[in-house]
């Protein structure tokens, strides 16, 4: 997993709440058996005017000029700003892969759905929670200021605006540690193989019908 330390990047404001994972990556693209290649289909139904299917040349499709991601001023954005309950619905990790394949490394919102939140950390995407009032302020600034960038410092746990205002954010210490060091969960868990075996031995006597 790619390490995450600090990021200074362009912000794209997506002014919608309850953005669900069906919207982030529509079902027809879930048929892939890979983890990559989802970038062109991020927000597919909103981004293009014509229906998309896997295997198409997406660069030739008709884009929806009104959709925020298609506006030239947000090209190259790596921070997505969104409203509450981002990532609700289906557990598809493809939603996180699509966001990171596209180039996003941070999503800032007042709240996230649990499974999406969890999936993000496993893929080096930082779901960052800020108060609704602060998110509101960031929306106003991002929309009013072309080239609006934020600095996200995971070590210091702050988001810094161009004018120097700094907002602290919370992140689980274990997840932060894994992100900062690019650590893989499975390797870490397997270090506790003895504990897992001991648990199984005990459980086998308590609840033998489970084995």
């Amino acid at each position, binding site marked *: 997993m790619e390490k995450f330390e600090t990021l200074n990047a362009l912000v794209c404001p997506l002014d919608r709440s309850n953005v669900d994972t069906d919207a982030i990556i529509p079902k027809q693209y879930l048929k892939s*058996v890979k983890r990559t290649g989802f970038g062109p289909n991020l927000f597919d139904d909103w981004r293009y005017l014509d229906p998309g299917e896997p295997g198409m040349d997406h660069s030739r499709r008709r884009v929806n000029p009104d959709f925020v991601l298609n506006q030239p001023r947000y090209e190259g954005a790596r921070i997505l700003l969104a409203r509450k309950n981002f990532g609700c619905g289906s*557990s598809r990790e493809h939603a996180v892969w699509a966001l990171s394949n596209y180039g996003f490394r941070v999503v800032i919102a007042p709240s996230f759905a*649990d499974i999406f939140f969890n999936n993000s950390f496993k893929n080096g995407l930082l779901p960052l929670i800020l108060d609704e009032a602060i998110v509101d302020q960031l929306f106003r600034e991002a929309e009013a200021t072309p080239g609006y960038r934020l600095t996200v410092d995971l070590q210091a746990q702050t988001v810094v605006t161009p004018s120097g205002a700094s907002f602290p954010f919370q992140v689980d210490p274990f997840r932060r540690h894994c992100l900062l060091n690019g650590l893989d969960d499975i390797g870490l868990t397997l270090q506790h193989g003895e504990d897992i075996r001991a648990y199984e031995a005990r459980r086998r006597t308590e609840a033998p019908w489970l084995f």
Partner: protein
Amino acid sequence: MTAKTLYDKLWDAHVVRTEEDGTALLYIDRHLVHEVTSPQAFEGLRLTGRKPWRSHSVVAVPDHNVPTRDRDQGIADPVSRTQVETLQQNVRHFGLTFFPMGDIRQGIVHVIGPEQGATLPGMTVVCGDSHTSTHGAFGALSMGIGTSEVEHVLATQCLLQKKMKSMLISVDGQVGPGVTAKDIVLAIIGEIGTAGGTGYAIEFGGDAIRALSMEGRMTVCNMAIEAGARAGMVAVDDTTIDYVKGRPFAPKGAYWHQAVAAWRELHSDPDARFDRVVHIDAASIEPQVTWGTSPEMVLPVSGKVPNPDEVTDEVKANGMRRALEYMGLTAGMPVSDITVDKIFIGSCTNARLEDIRAAAEVVKGRRVAGNVKLAMVVPGSGLVKQQAEAEGLDRIFLDAGFEWREPGCSMCLAMNADRLEPGERCASTSNRNFESRQGLGGRTHLVSPAMAAAAAVTGRFADVRELN
């Protein structure tokens, strides 16, 4: 000893170890696998040379992509076919239990787990699918996980997790006639919102929940995720134990008696404390119909489509305006005047025998209305289909003009050929009414099987209680 909630008991029984910050390694008893969220996890195992920790705990089935008719011709869409074949290769390679297409036991993963007794009370159950919350109906701790976690559980038999907060939703009293488990859960979501359960494990209790069959409890727990909760659960009672008894994977002989004794403990202690308690009056619940693009946008069938101009929260009002536009509805319109184009009775929410019986009862002796282009029933599993046919339910539907299909997810998410065309309006017994969920530009209204049947025969959202 301090009083414990059901969630506390399930959690405590599965903790392998806990880190200082509270992150626990939680042991997983049952791992259900389907074709959409598993290929990248199996690939991960192969790339790192890892093996499944306990292959015996895994049950795999294709459901999302499978066609619901002309199965003898295989899967026409090459991309879908690859995904189903990939699952087949993976289960063979790793030696896992598998119910392929054509096996009578094949069906939607959340229908077949309980049906086979692969889901048992007291278990931890995971699946790379958010509706895994369904299995909590058995007094199990069941959660949807992402693909990285699928790989993690395959490799280690454990899930890294922090304990969630606990919520009790008590549905007090009894529902009136014509009001089903689906209406109860939609009313709950309408009350607490789609993010109301975020960060919580929800226990559903109260007399109205106790009175439900296992099928009904599964319907309620299924949609816990639509209220934002990863896990929903119901305490074990005789209804649970009677359902499990004799199922293929259920314990037998001495183990059965030992298991039942343990399962009897699977309820919250009388003075257990919850972080949040919500009371819902069962008698006030009417048949429900969603009007928008989020399950919380729901109304009683006697209601009228709401007006965003009457809402003060601007973000919310804008969301409502977008939903009204997408759904092609105007504020103030009575729900019962909304006409439909298609009917879908199916999905892991409502494709069990009881659901199909309830719909058949309404359809019996009637015909699908002229304005309905397609009405279909997609049973949740091969066994549900077989049983329904043995009861003659397929004839009732076919005689009325419905289609009777093979089991799978089908138009719940339209990954196979079953889908809505742009602008088409559907009465659906599934669980998500998101934009384009059932096909690009499709308009979904979530309802119970009986209400879907009523919509089929009247061509609009008629109150099923008024059909005689």
